[in-house]
């Protein structure tokens, strides 16, 4: 009897509707709880956009500085592999949104199926990436000082000008560090696709966790926040690849 009254007191504000086990006491309603989580997720996604945005700007700068090297280096990327990965990621986004849709309607079987399909697509993406990367490792198309490919048409390392007028102009200037446009291209390539790949990997881990919870029947039409938020994350990863693909694989 006394327990009941204490309970009523603690949850007095939700007397008119059933208590959801996922409802945390510091939120007035489930809707408020959901919206709060979603705003937090969007703030996180903005930091992701800015993180990749910085890398895109750096890539653009270096492309303007080494236009010939970048165009030549991009021919080493296999276009169909990039296109295949684009298609795979778009399909995974589609299955992800269907999983969210199923979770919203509380259909467990579809939710599990579409989450599993999303994970399968993510794994296909990583397998294609594995073949791309291992080919580049074999050929020596590696970042910065590890770059060891010998078949480039421009000098691998720009020579200091030996012309007499240049020597007269800057006799005491110490030689600049040796830079290489090809290696710079692959530095950016591995940094950006690698960071994106890590995001895919993290996505697989979170999707698996959500899949296990969905399989246990934890989500319903009143509580499916984790599915929705991992969906947002997954679409952002897809969105980043939408920009990566043309800039790396299709530049002229």
């Amino acid at each position: 009897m006394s327990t009941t009254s204490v309970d009523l007191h603690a949850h007095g504000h939700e007397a008119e509707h059933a208590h959801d086990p996922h409802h945390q006491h510091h939120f007035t309603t489930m809707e408020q709880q959901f919206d709060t989580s979603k705003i937090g997720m969007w703030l996180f996604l903005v930091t992701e956009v800015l993180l990749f945005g910085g890398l895109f700007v750096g890539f653009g700068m270096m492309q303007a500085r080494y236009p010939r090297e970048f165009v030549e280096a991009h021919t080493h990327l296999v276009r169909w592999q990039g296109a295949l990965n684009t298609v795979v990621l778009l399909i995974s986004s589609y299955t992800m949104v269907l999983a969210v849709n199923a979770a919203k309607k509380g259909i467990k079987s579809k939710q599990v199926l579409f989450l599993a399909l999303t994970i399968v697509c993510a794994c296909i993406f990583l397998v294609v990436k594995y073949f791309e990367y291992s080919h580049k490792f074999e050929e020596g198309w590696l970042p910065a000082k590890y770059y060891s490919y010998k078949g480039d048409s421009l000098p691998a390392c720009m020579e200091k000008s030996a012309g007499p007028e240049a020597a007269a102009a800057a006799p005491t200037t110490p030689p600049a560090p040796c830079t290489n446009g090809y290696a710079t291209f692959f530095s950016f390539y591995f940094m950006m696709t690698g960071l994106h790949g890590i995001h895919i990997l993290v996505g697989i881990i979170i999707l698996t966790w959500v899949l296990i919870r969905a399989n246990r029947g934890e989500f319903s039409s009143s509580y499916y926040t984790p599915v929705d938020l991992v969906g947002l994350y997954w679409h952002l990863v897809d969105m980043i690849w939408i920009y990566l693909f043309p800039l790396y694989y299709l530049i002229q």
Partner: protein
Amino acid sequence: MSTQTQTATTHGANAHAKHEHGGTALYTKILIALLILTAITVFAAGFDFGQGNVVIALVIATIKASLVGLFFMHLVWDKPVNAVIAMAGFLFLGIFIMFCLLDFNTRNNFIPQNMTPTLVPLAPGTAPAGNVIRTNPAAGQAEGGEKK
């Protein structure tokens, strides 16, 4: 209007499930649109439009990203606050890119003055031929450019 009110009252507690939107049919159409746009990007890259290639690629990518954001990420149906946050992110990214372009476009010599790119690989001990590319004529004397 009346339908929306009715749905809202029916569901009551699980209020965020009240808006019936999206649906498999719409998502399938979006996916097909995205795949067609991908095909167009790859196809357009086969032609040489000069500087236009990058512009075309980025415009198509932005259309694709908008489709993903509006429909797959539900921004079109969501509370506006999420779209405001997303737009703020892209606004600051735009400011970032704009100022970087301003800086880049106002440099008279982007290549460090003590470096002269040459067209052909130099054999050891050979003086470079006159085929200097991409430097402006005043590069040798210019005091501007990167100090690194």
